[in-house]
């Protein structure tokens, strides 16, 4: 896989957007994914306008109502309007998704860049990363949540920590192969400061794969948040996240399956949107990565 070009194959901005446009035409899934995601974002931002009831308004008289014109998605065991709760739940999922992606990518990038260049750092850090990667992410996140206690910030941190090792791995492998490139070797041998090499030559080439990886982390973080909330180790129960709504519906599943199915459907749709976007970006930006995944 030796690429013998002397020019840094940096993707110019205009070329990147140009290729994106072309790819969107070629892969309608990207368009589908991004429009679905936009809808979700709109739903999250406009939640106070879209709601028909207060998401926390308890009305014991209306408990466990089937979907109707009054309660579009029905009500839960406290008589809260499921539709309004689901609409508000989108905020949590998207917040966790974006938060985890941003934190794990930036921390993973920083660690990964250093491991690629500092031998002693690499030796220590990669042992730790190997260890962390040997703990299934769900369990690691559960363990961290059990320690830290329920809050949205902790959920984001716990999932991010579980995701970071994979980002480090990716960045490290990119750096190691980039380091063999003639233009990087040239920069190293001519005594260019490390920081400058990282910023000028290495960083730009990690962006495309990281963007793709970021969307996948976004998607899996939304699922992980729901999983944590569902088993009672995630978002505090008073916040209407999709995982929490589903957890509350567990006992009533046979009589009122809609309590689980509506948030489940929206969660699936949101994850699907991000996955479609990720697949499209991957095909567009990095055909080699497309082979690997």
């Amino acid at each position, binding site marked *: 896989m030796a690429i013998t070009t002397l020019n840094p194959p940096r993707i110019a901005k205009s070329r990147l957007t140009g290729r994106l446009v072309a790819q969107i035409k070629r892969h309608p899934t990207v368009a589908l994914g991004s429009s679905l995601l936009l809808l979700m974002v709109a739903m999250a931002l406009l939640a106070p306008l879209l709601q028909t009831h207060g998401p926390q308004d308890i009305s014991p008289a209306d408990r466990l109502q089937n979907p109707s014109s009054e309660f579009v998605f029905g009500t839960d065991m406290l008589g809260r309007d499921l539709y309004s709760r689901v609409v508000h739940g989108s905020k949590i999922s998207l917040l966790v998704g974006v938060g985890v992606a941003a934190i794990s990518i930036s921390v993973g990038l920083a660690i990964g860049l250093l491991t690629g260049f500092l031998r002693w750092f690499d030796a220590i850090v990669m042992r730790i990363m190997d260890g962390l990667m*040997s703990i299934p992410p*769900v*369990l690691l996140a*559960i363990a961290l949540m059990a320690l830290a206690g329920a809050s949205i910030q902790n959920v984001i941190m716990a999932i991010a920590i579980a995701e970071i090792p994979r980002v480090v791995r990716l960045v490290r492998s990119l750096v190691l192969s980039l380091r063999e490139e003639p233009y990087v070797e040239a920069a190293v041998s001519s005594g260019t400061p490390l920081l400058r090499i990282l910023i000028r030559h290495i960083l730009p080439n990690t962006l495309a794969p990281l963007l793709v990886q970021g969307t996948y982390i976004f998607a899996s973080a939304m*699922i992980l948040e729901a*999983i944590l909330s*569902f*088993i009672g180790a995630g978002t505090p129960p008073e916040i209407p996240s999709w995982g929490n709504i589903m957890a509350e519906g567990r006992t009533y599943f046979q009589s009122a*399956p809609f309590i689980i199915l509506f948030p489940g459907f929206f969660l699936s749709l949101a994850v*699907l949107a991000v996955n479609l976007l990720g697949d499209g970006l991957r095909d567009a930006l990095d055909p080699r990565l497309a082979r690997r995944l």
Partner: protein
Amino acid sequence: MFSYIVQRLLATIPVMGVVALVVFSLLYFSPGDPATIIAGDMASEEDVREIREQMGLDQPYFVRFGTWIGGVLQGDLGTSIFTNRPVADLIMQRLEPTVALTVSTMIVAVALAVPLGIIAAWKAGTAIDRIVMGFAVLGFSVPVFVIAYTLILIFSVWLEVLPVQGYVSITEGFLPFVQHLILPSLALGAVFAALIARITRASMLEVLSQDYVRTAKSKGLNQKEVLLRHALKNAAVPIVTIIGIGVALLIGGVVITETVFAIPGLGRLTVDAILRRDYPIIQGVILLFSFVYVFINLLVDVSYCFFDPRIRY
């Protein structure tokens, strides 16, 4: 090859060491003082201090880690705070359902996903390929509990052909055992199967573009022989690799699946422990699952030699 296996085994020691350190830290930093809990409400401060000394809780971090790891190596995973029983015993009690569930899921997922991936690669670009890959994306996107509840709704509530939940040991009859495992395995296996199908397709596509596949066709072999005899073995390494890595997804999914289907396995044990803040149990389960995960990936590494004669260690 023997020396390779030994070498790989040795390489897992530092990995497991880090796992152990993380897991140990979990208990070390956990809120609450075990000594206070054990001493009970009526204990004096003096009693608590005594218990603490007895348990070695006043020792520094690394000394305690050493003591703990020494115990673990002898099969002592500590004592449950809630039930006051050895964690190792609790785990042994819950082992069977989890093993049954994961093994059946792996079999179902691999048996389903590999052929589908091969067909998708063979028919790349056609409607069949798109349908298979569409299902794969869905498998990635629909979380395990949504699939689980949907399956329950369809097959147990509406059609009433399969039990809603629960677990029946194989010793109590094979048919009920299988009946109770079908839905959980399908739900748990969806992501895993999606992952395997995608990798199988990608790996096969890569192989099918190789020169030796053209050579095989030039001999007059038919499509099936080309795919199964010449291509699949070459495509196997990435496939078994992802099966190994995918076990992590499976383990994560077990926790949820057992909760939804009320299966009394390790997943349920974990969830109950979380709700009760029973840290030694959480610790023990994570340690066990991580060990299994590392071990399976060790097996995967060794299996490379079987698939590719060029790999000799």
